[in-house]
Structure formats: C-alpha cells, structure tokens
C-alpha cells in the first residue's frame, strides 16, 4: 500500500489505543509509483505531528522517513533509531509528553475527530494545487501561507471538537465548559455562538441565571 493512503485519523486512533510510536517509511520523492503519494503522505504526517504538538503529545512519536526497497541497511538504521527514540520517550502519557495519562487519551479522541472531519482532509488534499496552480480564485499559496491555513484549522477544530465531545455527554453551561476544558469562558461563548449558527449546538434550557447548551 502507498503511504499516501494512510489516513491521519487512523494514526490518531492507533495512538488513542495506546500506541507509543509510529514510523511511516515511504519512497523517495520522485520515485512514487502514484506520482505524488509520498508527497501527500509527508504533508499528512507533518500535519498530524503539528496537531500532536498542539494537544501535548510528543510529536516525535510519529515520524516519516524515506527508504527504497533495496536499502535493507538503511531501513534497519531508520528503525533502530526510531525505536531508540520511542524507548527514551517512555510510554504514551508519561514523562515524554506534555499531557499525561489518562487525559492524553481524551485529547487523542478529540484529535481523531478533528482528523476525521472533512475540513482538514479537504484542505490537506488541496496542498499541491494551492502551491502550484492556486485556489479557486487563482491565488497561489506560499508554503508558509498554507501552513498558516492548516494551523488555523487545527487550533479551531480542536477546541470546537472538545466542546462538542463534552456536550455529547450532556447539557453544559459556558462556565462549566470553560472549567472542564480550561479554555477562557469568553472564547467558549464565541465558539458556542458560532456552533449555534451552524445548527450544531442549541440552547436547551435556562436554569436560574444560566443558559445550558446541547449538541444537535
């Protein structure tokens, strides 16, 4: 199978199921049987590493390396090096990561939801056309601009998915969400309003002086 087919949401799912490290080894650039599968794979893994870093999972637990089928010794070297790295990091959610177990698994669940969502899939798929021929308006992106776009989605989707995950457990107030997710309440308020507009969240009831919201 081509590394380009690896779905980042499966990567997150694997880590959620207590994987400590994942090494993706693809062909050298230019050697891809499917022309740009390895370029896609690199972009997807870079983005997933970025997301891991953002949520507090050590991004070195996920690596992308190149090797051809004839390079046995190179392969051994890459694998040994990676195995040493993972050994030094220890088990997921321990010393090697900013977020500790068991919260880290909750975060990875959110990461999985973000990576399974159409926003990030669609945009990462647009990388090549955006950098080469441009977007719908013919505007060509620099790599830096594209990275900003990806970062924007990562930051916003993680917080949005965290809110939605929490609301699926039951109705919540803005204050309650802010406390549970450690996000400033005014930011939660804005997210809730954005989600309401998208008809993904609704006001359930007002209890005392506090409105409670549910996911739809």
């Amino acid at each position, binding site marked *: 199978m081509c590394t380009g087919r690896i779905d980042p949401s499966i990567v997150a799912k694997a880590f959620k199921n207590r994987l400590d490290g994942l090494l993706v080894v693809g062909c050298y650039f230019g050697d891809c049987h499917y022309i740009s599968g390895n370029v896609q794979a690199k972009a997807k893994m870079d983005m997933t590493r970025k997301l891991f870093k953002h949520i507090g999972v050590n991004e070195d637990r996920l690596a992308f390396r190149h090797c051809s089928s004839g390079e046995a010794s190179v392969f051994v070297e890459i694998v040994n090096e990676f195995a040493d790295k993972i050994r030094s990091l220890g088990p997921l959610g321990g010393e090697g990561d900013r977020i500790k177990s068991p919260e880290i698994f909750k975060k990875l669940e959110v990461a999985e939801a973000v990576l399974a969502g*159409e926003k990030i899939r669609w945009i990462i798929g647009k990388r090549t056309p955006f950098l080469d021929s441009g977007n719908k*308006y013919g*505007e060509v992106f620099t790599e*830096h601009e594209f990275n900003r776009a990806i970062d*924007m989605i990562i930051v916003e989707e993680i917080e949005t998915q965290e809110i939605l995950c929490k609301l699926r457990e039951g109705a919540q107030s803005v*204050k309650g969400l802010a406390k549970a997710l450690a996000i400033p309440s005014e930011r*939660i308020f804005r997210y809730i309003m954005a989600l*309401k507009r998208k008809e993904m969240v609704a006001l359930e009831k007002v209890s005392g002086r506090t409105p409670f919201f549910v996911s739809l």
Partner: protein
Amino acid sequence: MIYEKEKRYIIAFDDVPSPRAEMPEISVDDRRGNFVEVETGFPEALAVQEAKRCLSCRRCLGCALCWAECKPEAIDFDIPDEELDLEFDEVIITKGQDNAFHPLKPELGYGSYADIITDLQFERMLSPTGPTDGIVVSPKDSEIPRRVAIIQGHPEGDENHLLSSLILGVNESILALEKTGELNVVLVSPISQSFKEQFFSDVEKISGLQIVEGVPESVVKKQDGESLTLTYSEDGQSKQEAFDLIVVLTKPKISPEIKLLSQKLDQGIL
C-alpha cells in the same frame, strides 16, 4: 469595510504572542563624524524568523469545500462582479450600515473586558434574530446578568447626541427588562434638556430602570471572575457601584468614504 470594522478575529496560534525582530544598528559612538549606514539589516535567520510571524491573512481560502458540500449547487465561484454606469438627478447621502463610532476613552474598559459591550452590540443581543437567542447574557461567561449599567460614552456630546443616545438607552432598557426577570438597569449619563421635557415623565414609570444624571468615569475589575465596578460622578460626588454587564452608549462616526463623497458633491449627510 465589511467584516473588518473592528480588530480582526485572530486565531490563538501557538506562536502568538512573540515579539518582532529588532533591526541591528551600529553604536552611537560609531556615528559621529561620518555617514555610515546606521541600520545594518536583518541577518538571514532573523529575517526568516520575522517572516514566519506573518499570519497570512486570507478571508475565504478559496478551498471550495462549501461548493463541494452544496447539494442544490447554489454556490458558484464564477458569478462575476457587475459594473454599472448609472446617472441620477439627485443624490442623498446617509451614513449607511457602517455603524462606526467615535473612539471610547480607554478608562471605560471597552475592549479590555468581555462583559463591556457597545449599545450597538446590545441592540443585536436584544434582537429576536440576534446571536444569543434574544436572551440578555454577558459575553464574558454567558450568564444572565442581574445588574446592568448603560453608561454614556461621550458625556461631552452635544444635545442631539445625548438625546438620541438616551432614547436608545431607554429603549434598550425596556427590551432588556421585558426579556429578563429580576433585572435592574441603571442608566448613567448627562441628561439633555429636551429629553427631560419630552420623555422624563414616561421614563420614570418604567419599573426596574433607574436614571442617574451623572458622568461615567471608569470601569475596572479587580479580579478576573469578579463583577465590574463603575465609578461615576453625580452632583460633584464620586460614586461606585458593581454591575454584571455594562453597555456603553456610542457616538456614530461618519466613514471617511462618505465624508469624501459629501465633500465632492458639496452636500450634507442625512
């Protein structure tokens, strides 16, 4: 500018905040008696670091995901702009929907605290189609306030400004009181003569609304999570009161474009 009126909404990127690169310079001692260039230019690493700070602002990424998701195929990026050449016999200039307002003095706390909003924002909050389901809440934590102050942002304003902003303040109070149980609204502003003559008797009958003829001075919050403390002067005395939500009455500002148009056609703005 549409969707650009206030500060842009900035995503909480991981690398924000970070300071900008300082331009290296030769020392002052090395400058006397010669004309050697003072600024020596960014070294490469610093230039790249600085360039990476760019947020690459782009509204509508042009990704066409909406187009892909739209079942009725209503989205069409190729619908062109239209240029129209039209002639008229008369032009009436109004300020339009810009809803820009004169800057508020920073002491009033607008922009510093999420629970201080403008009369224009409060108007949208009170609207049945507004963003909060028509409920009066504090944008700080979405709680329904018990005590709301509506304060004059431009106490130095003329009679016309005071009159229209007072009427707006009272109307907003009427709506807020109607929508919200157990609510107290205090309106703090200099009171214009015409307001006193035309409206005061009606306004006095509104239960839950207290009019204070005074000048708002400052709003502070001692600790996050605490309520807002308003300081105002009434009859030369300084007073303090605590509120859950503060609404500032603004003074409309005409956009530069409209001003230019009015100059060009040599006519006033309605």
